[in-house]
C-alpha cells in the first residue's frame, strides 16, 4: 500500500502546473497535425503529373527560361528545403497564382469561402433544429413506430448519393414545378447587384435592405441547404438518440420520475442537459462534414464555393488552386475538431 501511495503524493505537487502542461500538449498536437497536413498536401503536389515550370513558362519556352523558372521556384533544392519554403509561403498566406483565374489563390479562396460557409451554416442550422428533437423523441419512444420512422429517415439520409438527389430535386422543384430558383446563388439579373460586404448574399442583401434580392437568394439556397440539412439531420438525430438512451437508463432519471416531475422536465431538464456536451462535438463534426460534402453539392448546384473551386481547378490541372483549397479545408477541419475538443473540456466538469 505504501508503495502505491507514494507516486500519488508526488503527483500532487507537479513542478509544472497541470493546466499549462495540458495546454502545451494540445498546442504541440495541433502544430504537429497542421504540419503533417501541409506535408501531405506538399507531397501530393510533388507527385502530381503536372510540371509546375511548364505551366508557368509555357510549352515553347527556351531551355534557359525553363532553367531560370525552375530555379526561381526552388525546385533545384532538396525536398525538405522545398517543404520549408512551402510552409513559409502558406504562413504568409501565399498560395501562389491560379492558372485558371490568373489571380492569387488566396484572393480566390477569400472570395469563394463565404458561399460555402453560408450554405453549410444554413444546412447545419436546420439539421440541428430538426435533428435534435427527432433524436430525443426517438429515444423517449424507443421501439415505437415513431422510433422506426426516425430510423428509416436517417438510414435513407445515409444511403442517398447527394449529387443524385440534388439533380432529382432540381428536376422536380425547378424544372417541373418551378417553385425554386435554379443553380447558382442568384438569378442572373441580380448577380453583381449585391455589394460584397460579408460575401454571404443572405446577409448582404439584408444589410442593403433589398428584399427582392433576399427572396431570390432564399429561393436559390433552399434546395441545396435542405439537402445538407437532411444529411446532418440523419447523423445528428442518430447520435442524439443513442446519447439520450444512455442517459434515460441512468438511475437519476428514475429518481426524478419518482419525485413526481413531469415527463417533459425529466427529458429536457435532466436527461437532455447531460447530452448537450457530447452533442456539441457531434454538431461540430457534422458541420465539418458539410464543408467537405460541399464538393459534390456545389458541383450540382453551380454554387460558387470552395468545393466547386477545387473541382474546377482539379479538372483543369490548376495545381496551386487545388493545393490551396485542400489546405484551407483541412485547416478549417482541424480547427473545428479542436474547437469541439475545447468546448468539451470547458463544459464537461469531468474533463477538468
Amino acid at each position: 500500500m505504501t508503495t502505491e501511495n507514494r507516486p500519488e503524493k508526488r503527483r500532487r505537487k507537479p513542478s509544472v502546473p497541470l493546466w499549462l502542461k495540458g495546454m502545451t500538449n494540445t498546442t504541440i498536437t495541433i502544430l504537429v497535425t497542421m504540419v503533417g497536413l501541409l506535408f501531405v498536401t506538399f507531397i501530393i503536389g510533388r507527385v502530381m503529373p503536372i510540371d509546375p515550370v511548364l505551366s508557368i513558362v509555357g510549352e515553347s519556352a527556351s531551355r534557359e527560361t525553363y532553367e531560370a523558372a525552375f530555379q526561381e521556384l526552388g525546385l533545384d533544392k532538396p525536398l525538405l528545403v522545398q517543404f520549408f519554403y512551402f510552409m513559409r509561403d502558406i504562413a504568409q498566406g501565399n498560395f501562389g497564382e491560379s492558372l485558371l483565374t490568373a489571380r492569387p489563390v488566396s484572393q480566390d479562396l477569400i472570395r469563394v469561402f463565404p458561399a460555402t460557409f453560408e450554405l453549410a451554416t444554413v444546412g447545419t442550422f436546420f439539421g440541428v433544429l430538426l435533428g435534435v428533437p427527432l433524436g430525443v423523441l426517438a429515444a423517449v419512444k424507443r421501439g415505437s413506430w415513431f422510433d422506426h420512422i426516425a430510423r428509416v429517415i436517417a438510414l435513407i439520409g445515409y444511403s442517398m448519393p447527394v449529387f443524385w438527389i440534388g439533380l432529382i430535386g432540381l428536376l422536380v422543384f425547378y424544372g417541373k414545378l418551378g417553385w425554386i430558383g435554379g443553380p447558382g446563388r442568384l438569378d442572373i439579373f441580380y448577380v453583381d447587384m449585391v455589394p460584397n460586404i460579408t460575401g454571404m448574399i443572405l446577409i448582404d442583401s439584408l444589410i442593403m435592405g433589398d428584399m427582392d434580392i433576399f427572396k431570390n437568394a432564399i429561393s436559390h439556397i433552399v434546395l441545396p441547404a435542405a439537402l445538407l440539412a437532411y444529411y446532418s439531420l440523419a447523423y445528428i438525430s442518430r447520435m442524439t438518440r443513442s446519447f439520450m438512451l444512455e442517459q434515460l437508463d441512468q438511475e437519476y432519471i428514475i429518481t426524478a420520475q419518482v419525485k413526481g416531475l413531469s415527463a417533459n422536465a425529466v427529458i429536457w431538464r435532466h436527461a437532455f442537459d447531460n447530452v448537450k456536451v457530447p452533442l456539441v462535438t457531434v454538431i461540430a463534426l457534422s458541420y465539418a462534414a458539410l464543408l467537405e460534402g460541399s464538393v459534390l453539392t456545389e458541383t450540382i448546384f453551380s454554387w460558387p464555393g470552395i468545393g466547386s473551386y477545387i473541382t474546377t481547378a482539379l479538372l483543369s490541372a490548376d495545381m496551386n488552386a487545388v493545393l490551396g483549397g485542400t489546405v484551407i479545408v483541412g485547416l478549417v477541419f482541424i480547427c473545428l475538431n479542436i474547437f469541439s475538443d475545447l468546448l468539451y473540456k470547458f463544459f464537461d466538469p469531468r474533463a477538468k
Partner: protein
Amino acid sequence: MSMDSKNPQKFSSLYEWLTTDAPISRNQARLSALYMSWLELRSNPMAMFGITILLALVLIAWSAPLLAPQSPFTQDLAARLTPPGEGGYILGSDSLGRDILSRLIYGARITLYIVSLVALLAPIVGLFVGTAAGYLGGWIDVILMRITDIFLAFPKLILALAFVSALGAGIENAVLAIVLTSWPPYARIARAETLTIRDADYIHAIKLQGAGSLRIITRHIWPLCISSLVVRVTLDMAGIILTAAGLGFLGLGAQPPSPEWGAMISAGRKFILDHWWVATMPGMAIFVVSLAFNLLGDGLRDVLDPKKSSK
C-alpha cells in the same frame, strides 16, 4: 485431437451440433457462436432485407452476361434517349443509345469490385499500423498514431480528390485514394484492441516461450482484432460506395465508356430536365445498394453490440 474423434456421433443433427452448450472443439464453439448471431440477425427484418438485396446484387454481377438484354457498350444512335419501356429498353437508353439496364447490370460488377477491394485493403493497412503501434508502444506508437491523426484530420473526399488528381483518374487509383483516406479509423480500432490484449497472461506466456514481436502480433493479436474490424467495415461499406460513386461522378473514377454508376449519373446530368431517366436510374441503383449495406450494418451492430443486446 484424439479426444474429438473418440466421441463421434454425439449429436443427432447439425442443428444440435450448432446449438450445444458444451462444444467439444474450437471450431464447433466458433461456428455455434456464429450461428447464434445469425439467428439473432435473422429476426431483424430490415437486416434480412439488406442481405437479400446484396445477395441479389452479387448474383446479378456474377451472371451479368446472361441477364443483360444487350451489351453495355453497343451504341444505337437512332435510338438515343429512348424513354423507359419503349423500343425494348426497359429502363430507357442513354445519349448514345446504350441500354441503361444492361449498363446498370454490368456496373454492379464495378461497384462490387471497388467495394470489395477497399473493404479488404483499408482494414489491412489499419491492422498493420494499429497493432504495430499498440504492441510495440513507445516512440513507434507516438509516430504511427500522429500519422493516423493527420490523415483523420483531413477531409476524406477532398484528400481522395487530391490523391486521384496526383495519381491520375481510373478505378484502381480511385480505390487507392479511398483506401488511403479510410484506413485511420481501422488503425485506431486495432490499436485499442491490441492495448487490451497486450498485457494478457497468455501473451506473457508466449513471450516466455521465446516468441518474437512479429510472431505475437501476426499469430496472436491479429486474429483477435479481426472481428471488430469486420463489423466496422460492414458499417463503412455504404460510405465507400458513395465515395466511389462521387469520384466517378466528378470524372475521377472509372473512365468512359465504363458503365460505372456515378459516371453514368454525371453523363445524364446534361439531359436531366428533358430526359430524367438517364441520371435517375443509376442513382436508384446506388441508393438501393448503399441502403442495403446500411440496413445490414445497422442490424449487425445491434447483434454484436453487447450493450444493446443485454437490454
